[in-house]
């Protein structure tokens, strides 16, 4: 039999485009992620605010809270990309028509778009509301970006696995948490140091750990995805 005529890139872009169009029309994942993140953000800022934390502790505590908001916001919507395909029985059509790797890459990019949008809205709001003083804004932004990239890489495969399970509920968070913890710890430390002032060497060390995690998860996900998606 002849190989597929379509290129991997075309398939990935078609899936990404379909998911974006579909999401902006239904707004299920967008609403879940933004409602959760903004609600927690405003709760934290009103109840705790910046003044109840000692100045010395602010970088570490505020960084930790930021990542808690980012992590659980992601957990509230990132699994939708696969759960929806399974629940609406559109998965078999996609399994037939697209390469497994294209499905993974398309869904990964879609999740990255969602998390990127959330990060772009929530992070500046959080900085303003919590009066989070940041000594190295560029390094801080890079830590947030790479942290989100690593997190999205780690959870996209888990989202595909959860979508196949009968008891979805909290399974996504439960499975994701132990895998993402090392990344979160490094990201929290990185953003905390970027807030107090970080040297280029420290920044590179932090980013290389996150990058290695994301790279390893990405390769592993690409290898394992077909088994999860087709079986």
């Amino acid at each position, binding site marked *: *039999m*002849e190989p*597929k*005529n*379509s*290129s991997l890139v*075309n*398939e990935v*872009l*078609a*899936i990404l*485009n*379909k998911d974006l*169009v*579909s999401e902006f*029309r*239904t707004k299920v994942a967008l609403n879940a992620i933004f409602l959760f993140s903004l609600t927690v953000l405003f709760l934290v800022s009103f109840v705790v605010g910046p003044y109840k934390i000692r100045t010395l502790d602010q970088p570490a505590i505020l960084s930790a809270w930021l990542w808690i908001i980012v992590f659980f916001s992601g957990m509230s919507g990132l699994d939708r990309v696969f759960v929806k395909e399974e629940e*609406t*029985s*559109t998965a*078999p*059509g*996609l*399994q*037939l*028509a*697209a*390469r497994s790797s*294209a499905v993974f890459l398309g869904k990964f990019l879609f999740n990255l778009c969602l998390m990127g949008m959330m990060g772009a809205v929530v992070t500046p709001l959080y900085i303003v509301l919590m009066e989070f003083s940041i000594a190295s804004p560029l390094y801080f932004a890079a830590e947030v970006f790479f942290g989100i990239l690593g997190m999205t890489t780690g959870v996209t495969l888990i989202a595909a696995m959860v979508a196949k399970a009968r008891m979805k509920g909290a399974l996504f968070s439960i499975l994701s948490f132990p895998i993402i913890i090392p990344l979160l710890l490094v990201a929290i430390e990185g953003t905390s140091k970027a807030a107090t002032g970080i040297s280029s060497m420290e920044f590179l060390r932090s980013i290389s750990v996150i990058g290695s995690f994301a790279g390893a998860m990405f390769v592993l996900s690409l290898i394992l995805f077909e088994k999860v998606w*087709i079986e």
Partner: protein
Amino acid sequence: MADLQLVAEGLGQAFGRTRLFSALDLQVPSGDVLLVRGPNGSGKSTLLRILSGFMRPQEGQVAVRWQGKECPPRKLFHRIGMCTPEMRLYEELTGMETMAFFSKLRGVDRDEKTLQELLRSVGLETSRHRWVKVYSSGMKQRLKLLLATFHEPPILYLDEPGSNLDDEGMDVVGRIIEAQKARGVVILATNDTREFAYGTQELFLGQ
């Protein structure tokens, strides 16, 4: 016509204590339509899932023989056309967007005018810019039939293709099966007497 043959040897499947079929041997060459009949729950849809590679059989094996080579159907997903009640459409896309999406995935280079013509062939041209969500069940079935065949697959699996279709829709099914016979293999699972005449081989499950 593609020189291929769908071959199954010793297929057996049971769910719990309910045995659907056992020691099932099939050979479906190009140009043949295998008509699979049987009462509800006899395993027609399960057999289609096994023959298409969506499900591994408990016993036996399935292969597609093509130009002297043998290949499991799972490796040929991109060359398969399939329309079953379990497969649904993206409700928030329009008919045209659905066609454009799958033509990109299938690597079938079709411009908007050609896609429009294809939609016209199944009577959906005027509703091509409406969301699939507002389509009637018959219109959805027509779109599913089109999606299963527009890339001209050598193997086509149809499970109850006439469900929810009016007489005009049944003509579409007839045209699709006749065109497919000239192209390759058709596996047709149905209990609709109007579709029995298409079969060139028959398998009755549930005896």
